[in-house]
């Protein structure tokens, strides 16, 4: 009690005039997520890399660069809302890229059929993780770590450890080169007056789909309920196991989508691609303010988090920081941003 009264007195001293707008700013989680983004953009304006930051091309490139990670982050948001984690998305992305390249380039399948197969296999990987988490009650961290290793191994097995490209050894041992299928060019194209790449639109489509599920569908309620209080969700009649399986399945599905995009952008299926992407996806989700303890957050926040992380790296690279320094700075700024957000949450809760 006495502590509370002390706080109140202090608040009066600082003046309520300043406090009210500050509270408005910190009470909404979106506003809390936008603050770090605004800071990063401000940094970009100040250290603009000889004005490169003010060129539209920079921003267009950035949107394209964060798209694949962003697609993974959409699925990651859903899993994290259930208070889980999915470490396998980077490997499932690589597996999907390899399978897609194999089917379209080497087997000559048409793109729509190949896409269906790849999406199904990615979803299946997610279902497998989800079943282990929901029914076998193994920790999500362990399950998806295992899936991460397994999917990477499978990608290497299928590709023979080589990059799968349009130039390869045929059945008779002779190297052949097939023309790049039309679909590759389509997905890598820029539309809307050459301003937005198709991959970015795919990312926004995934985000919209995730938003609809989380905010408008019954399933979304179940996802938040399971993550917020598993026991209460079970006792309230929520099909907890099915809900968890869905979360991981959706994450696997998005990893497959991201894998196809990656294959198209690289015009090959590289079994080594996507290394560490899961961590970028997690960073995007957390930067947005979705809590790792579950039951709170949303994909809109993840979108902001993705932009924050993307712009941060863009600003650092525009100013010609070395990769080594960029990594170290990114790590430090990540921690700073999360601590900063927590301060805001704490001050809005006590208010």
């Amino acid at each position, binding site marked *: 009690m006495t502590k509370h009264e002390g706080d109140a007195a202090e608040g009066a001293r600082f003046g309520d005039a300043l406090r009210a707008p500050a509270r408005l700013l910190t009470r909404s989680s979106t506003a809390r997520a936008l603050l770090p983004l605004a800071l990063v953009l401000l940094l970009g304006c100040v250290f603009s890399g000889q004005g490169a930051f003010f060129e539209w091309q920079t921003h267009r490139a950035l949107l394209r660069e964060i798209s694949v990670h962003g697609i993974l982050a959409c699925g990651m948001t859903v899993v994290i809302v259930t208070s889980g984690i999915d470490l396998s998305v980077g490997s499932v992305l690589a597996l999907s890229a390899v399978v897609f390249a194999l089917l379209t380039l080497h087997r000559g399948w048409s793109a729509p059929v190949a896409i269906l197969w790849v999406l199904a296999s990615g979803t299946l990987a997610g279902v497998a993780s989800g079943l282990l988490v929901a029914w076998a009650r193994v920790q999500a961290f362990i399950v998806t770590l295992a899936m991460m290793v397994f999917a990477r191994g499978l990608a290497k097995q299928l590709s023979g450890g080589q990059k799968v490209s349009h130039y390869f050894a045929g059945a008779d041992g002779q190297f052949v080169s097939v023309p790049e299928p039309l679909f590759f060019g389509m997905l890598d194209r820029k539309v809307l007056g050459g301003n937005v790449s198709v991959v970015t639109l795919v990312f926004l489509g995934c985000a919209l789909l995730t938003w609809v599920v989380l905010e408008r*569908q019954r399933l979304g*309620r179940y996802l*938040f309920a399971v993550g917020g209080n598993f*026991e*209460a*969700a079970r006792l*309230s*009649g929520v099909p907890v196991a099915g809900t968890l399986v869905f979360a991981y399945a959706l994450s696997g599905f998005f990893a497959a989508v991201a894998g196809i995009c990656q294959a198209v952008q690289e015009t090959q299926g590289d079994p080594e691609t996507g290394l560490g992407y899961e961590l970028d996806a997690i960073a995007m989700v957390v930067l947005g303010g979705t809590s790792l303890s579950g039951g*709170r957050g949303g994909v809109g926040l993840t979108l902001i988090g993705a932009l924050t992380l993307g712009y941060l790296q863009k600003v650092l690279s525009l100013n010609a920081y070395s990769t080594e320094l960029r990594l170290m700075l990114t790590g430090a700024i990540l921690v700073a941003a999360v601590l900063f957000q927590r301060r805001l949450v704490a001050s809005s809760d006590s208010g």
Partner: protein
Amino acid sequence: MQFGATTALSEVSIAFEPGEVHVLAGANGAGKSTLIKILSGAYPSYRGEIRVAGRPRRLSSPAVARALGIATIHQELSLVPSLSIAENMQLSLTGSALGLRSRARERAFAARVLSLVGLALDPDTRVERLSLGERQLLEIARALAQDANVLILDEPSSALSEPERLRLFSEVERAVQRGAAVLYISHRMEEIYRLGQRISVLCDGALVLTRLASELDRAELLRAMLGSARPELGAARPLSRSAGEKAVLEVRGLCAGQAARVEGVSFTLGAGEVLGLAGLDGSGPSVLLRALVGEAKLTAGEISVLGQRYLPTGPGRALGRGVAFLPADRKASIFEELSVVKNASLSALGRFTRRGFVDRARELRAVSELSARVRLKAPSLTSSARALSGGNQQKLALARCLLAGPSVLALEDPTRGVDAASKLDVYAAMADALRAGLGILLYSSELEELMALCDRVLVFFEGRVVSLLTKPEIGRERLLAAMMGAP
């Protein structure tokens, strides 16, 4: 030893003699646990004086209390399940100068502890493999091995099997023979008189009497424990039964549960009826309620809802068949991060969903109508449940059960830790539900509540129904006596 006042206890003066078992009795909320917490050093901010072996002492922390030879064995045991017996015993030993552990010393100490209570166990056994009784004996032995001269046992026998209980009794008697003072908290009549040489009764934070067990008969003990009726519950709306109604729930020969269990329970619940369930902690009512929604393993018996055979397999299916369960612990019923609306509609979402999409306008209408009926006080329906008081959270949880449209409400102590005003709101919501033709199974730890609200009360003792009281005969004394296993 002597005490002064605290908030939950006032002006209590009591003395514990060496070589004597002193039983402390009292109803829920009488102040027993406050007294124990003070004595074990967990409540350092008490007023008054405590003398140990004649010298005034300040029990400022659990470590101080232990150093003075006061050992407390709580209901929640303080052993680490994943460590071995020897390692657990070591936790209370002081380490060597370098803070290094000596395995030999550990094992020797553990062996001495085990031999004290005659447990034939390997010191390397992990504690999680021991039965509850063995763990309890282990804790007592540890206290004895550390030369505790005051032993506080808080309802030690509540979870024990019969042989384990007898073993416990003989250990307590041995400790007393060695000159220890034992403070024993119990709810069981038989135990109170078997072990206790002296009996003290607390009621509403005051010491009502202290007497030699041989000079206090059971009737007088019960009267002392009951004290005077609390007035706030007099305002509870009596719930009347519309006679001759159809049965909403029938239970025949139900056996369920594993560690805590019920056996051979049969009853019929009519539409518009409140059937009370009474019993001490662990005596069965909770297991029965959980068994009805598939949360406790059913081993025998038949259940039917609205005349249809029903096999409970889980809370979701139970809701589908019209049985809604409200757990006592709000940690198991409230989603603090979610809004009031989302909390309330969760169990009934199917009704508001079309093709997977939630019709949020209809949902909001239904929830706002219901929240007015349960008189929910919230900043707004979209604010998070965290912002609600405990009483309003409970109303919210009840609203979720009601919105699911059940025919049977299984309520587990729905007013535990709820303020007086909210209690009345909960009762009003129950009365509302009864008029709509629901049947309510109500377990309550407050006798007054059972007396005021129930048409009939099933009294449980050690997993069995020992009596069925109907309205005029539901009195405090009869209830309490039956709950304590008095014939």
